[in-house]
């Protein structure tokens, strides 16, 4: 059987940074990736351009052996049991979802780690913001994050960002001016530049961070995976982990994986790291038990439970004056005032992203085109009307906090299987009153922002969408009876099995999770290097 120091499952940001950090320190690393390794940016772009209705998943294929959930259109990979639809998707390919992510990298805030003791809801994390801070800084430098180092956004810093803040759009600045000195829900609003992993020395504002940056300015995990390869790590695509094999003493001895041809192989290691996101990691743990062995990492019964997202409330309006939209990074600014405050005792915190995209996050002004054509406009009248209408399309996107609920969970489908015969994820999911009140607050604040701008025809999308921020299904805690991993991300039940990713979040807060995932990965690699791999 092949033997490595470290076997990592999942070649996304978590697996990529872990693999790179360990390969740099001389460890023999294998990364198993279910999906393909396709990095030809131009070829991906052609696929994207030829896709009629564009979305996060458009450039990336969906092979039967490593299928993925899609949103445009919604597919049936998830077996949805409701009552709410779980709307977040991801990519299964080398580089993972950093191919289609937005590149936004806020840190969590100190209170996010102390929800129970501060606001009496959710639970406290077993680590603090201060524990993670040095790793946040390291991750910002690894990923190349932009930001104003003098403004910590409520998350104290021990060092500067590697790049200055990204330029805000004219729309951002107009909203900032309209909100100056204004308060809503007794909170003063401000519009500040995102922290973003977009290299300002490369970024041309191509309007397509999601689903594919044409210049590679946006951080993608292939940066670290390719660097790890150069240091000797093996990244093995089209290799679908299907079972974790545990010995009687509780150690993991090997991982079984299937090739796309259906052949089953095994690989051994000193240490195993599951980095397959908060959907595929619990699925693999559950698959391992379903294959006839004992439960894996699930003494607590928490594997797959406490599934969280940042449910999205989209709001549209028509601006009084036109802007230059449909260009620039898709979003350059955030309204962050509602990320933390006393309201979190009873309703979800949230962030609001200002979109430079006009009415649609992807592609061209297709809605305006369709509407104007439908009105019967042709020729020069159509041209003039479109030029005016597309510049007035405003879009605000609020992302709400969600508390852990053990009934929000992923289990294995008893009847539905993927192309390799493995059970697909079945999802049970609902929004509680806490999140529902937060979504209502988002509508109120987004409506207020539009009002201050003098915008009209405000429309709040009735459908609540997923943000792609899948969290909570392998939670971290001190107590093996109620959590899956400890503060070192080590499974309580298996000394040489570790989980890295947003699955370990005890609560969801409001920060886009990728930077925190990256911080966890660097922290874990350091821990392994100084500990079990010494």
């Amino acid at each position, binding site marked *: 059987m092949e033997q490595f120091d470290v076997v990592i499952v999942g070649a996304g940001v978590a697996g990529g940074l872990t693999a790179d950090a360990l390969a740099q320190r001389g460890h023999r690393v294998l990364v198993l990736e279910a999906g393909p390794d396709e990095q030809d940016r131009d070829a991906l772009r052609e696929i994207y*351009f030829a896709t009629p209705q564009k979305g996060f998943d458009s450039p990336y294929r969906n092979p039967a052996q490593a299928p993925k959930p899609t949103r445009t259109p919604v597919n049936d990979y998830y077996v949805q049991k409701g009552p709410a639809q779980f709307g977040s998707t991801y990519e299964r390919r080398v580089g993972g979802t950093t191919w289609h992510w937005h590149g936004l990298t806020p840190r969590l805030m100190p209170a996010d780690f102390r929800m129970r003791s501060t606001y009496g809801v959710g639970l406290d994390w077993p680590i603090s913001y201060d524990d993670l801070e040095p790793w946040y800084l390291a991750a910002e430098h690894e990923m190349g994050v932009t930001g104003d180092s003098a403004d910590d956004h409520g998350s104290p810093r021990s060092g500067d960002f590697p790049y200055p803040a990204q330029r805000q*759009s004219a729309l951002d600045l107009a909203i900032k001016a309209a909100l100056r000195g204004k308060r809503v829900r007794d909170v003063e609003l401000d519009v500040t530049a995102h922290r973003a992993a977009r290299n300002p020395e490369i970024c*041309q504002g*191509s309007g397509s961070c999601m689903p594919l940056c044409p210049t590679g300015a946006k951080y993608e995990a292939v940066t670290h995976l390719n660097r790890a390869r150069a240091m000797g790590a093996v990244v093995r695509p089209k290799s679908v982990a299907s079972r974790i094999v545990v010995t009687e003493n509780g150690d993991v001895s090997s991982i079984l994986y299937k090739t796309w041809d259906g052949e089953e192989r095994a690989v051994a290691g000193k240490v195993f790291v599951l980095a397959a996101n908060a959907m595929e990691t619990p699925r693999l743990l559950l698959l391992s038990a379903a294959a006839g062995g004992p439960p894996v990492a699930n003494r607590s019964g928490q594997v797959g439970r406490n599934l969280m997202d940042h449910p999205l409330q989209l709001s549209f309006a028509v601006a009084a004056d036109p802007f230059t939209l449909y260009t620039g990074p898709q979003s350059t600014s955030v309204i962050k005032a509602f990320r933390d405050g006393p309201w979190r005792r009873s309703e979800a915190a949230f962030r609001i992203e200002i979109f430079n995209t006009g009415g649609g996050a992807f*592609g*061209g002004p297709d809605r305006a085109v369709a509407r104007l054509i439908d009105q019967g406009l042709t020729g020069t009248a*159509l041209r003039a009307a479109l030029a005016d209408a*597309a510049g007035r399309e405003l879009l605000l996107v609020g992302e709400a906090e969600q508390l852990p609920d053990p009934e929000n969970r992923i289990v294995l489908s008893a009847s539905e299987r993927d192309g390799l015969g493995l059970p697909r994820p079945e999802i049970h999911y609902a929004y509680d009153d806490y999140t529902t009140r937060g979504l209502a607050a988002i509508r109120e604040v987004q409506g207020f922002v539009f009002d201050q701008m003098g915008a009209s025809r405000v429309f709040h999308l009735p459908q609540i969408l997923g943000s792609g921020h899948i969290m909570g299904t392998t939670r971290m805690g001190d107590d093996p009876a109620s959590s899956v991993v400890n503060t070192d991300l080590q499974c309580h039940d298996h000394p040489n099995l570790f989980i890295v990713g947003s699955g370990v979040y005890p609560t969801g807060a409001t920060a886009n999770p990728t930077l925190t995932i990256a911080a966890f990965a660097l922290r874990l690699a350091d821990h392994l290097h100084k500990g079990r791999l010494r």
Partner: protein
Amino acid sequence: MLSRRRVLEGTVAISAGCVLPGLSAGATELAAARPDRAVFLGLSRALTGFDDLNEELAAHFMTYLAERDPERWRALMSRLRTLDASGDAHAGPATIKALEASEDLWALAKEITGLWYSGWTQAGDEVPQAIRAEGYREALAWRVLALTPRGVAPGRLWQQAED
């Protein structure tokens, strides 16, 4: 291998319903194809408000429309010829008005406008169709907005750009 253009020319030759005696098959197709292309471009110019339309893209749009619904395509071509909208000149407001009078043909004309402006189309409840990547890249909406298509780098750094 049969190119898309050849397929197109074959399609429109059949749709035009006229095979001229004494010409080779290829020449016959070309002779028949030119008027159709010109007719389509003339209508497209009137619908879109742009004179310099991409002829290769026009060929792809024609192929797609003719293959998808040959009967309606033939009806449109026939109607346009009747309206004397052939040649390189703009089809005029009278052509637009005449098409508006026919629910079927006006729906098709709107779809043609949408193809030029967005690069893709959706007929009824059918799955949306993209003609090809160029349809998006050269969608007229980008020219109206004076922007490179999203996903194509504009050629200057965002940090130094002015809105």
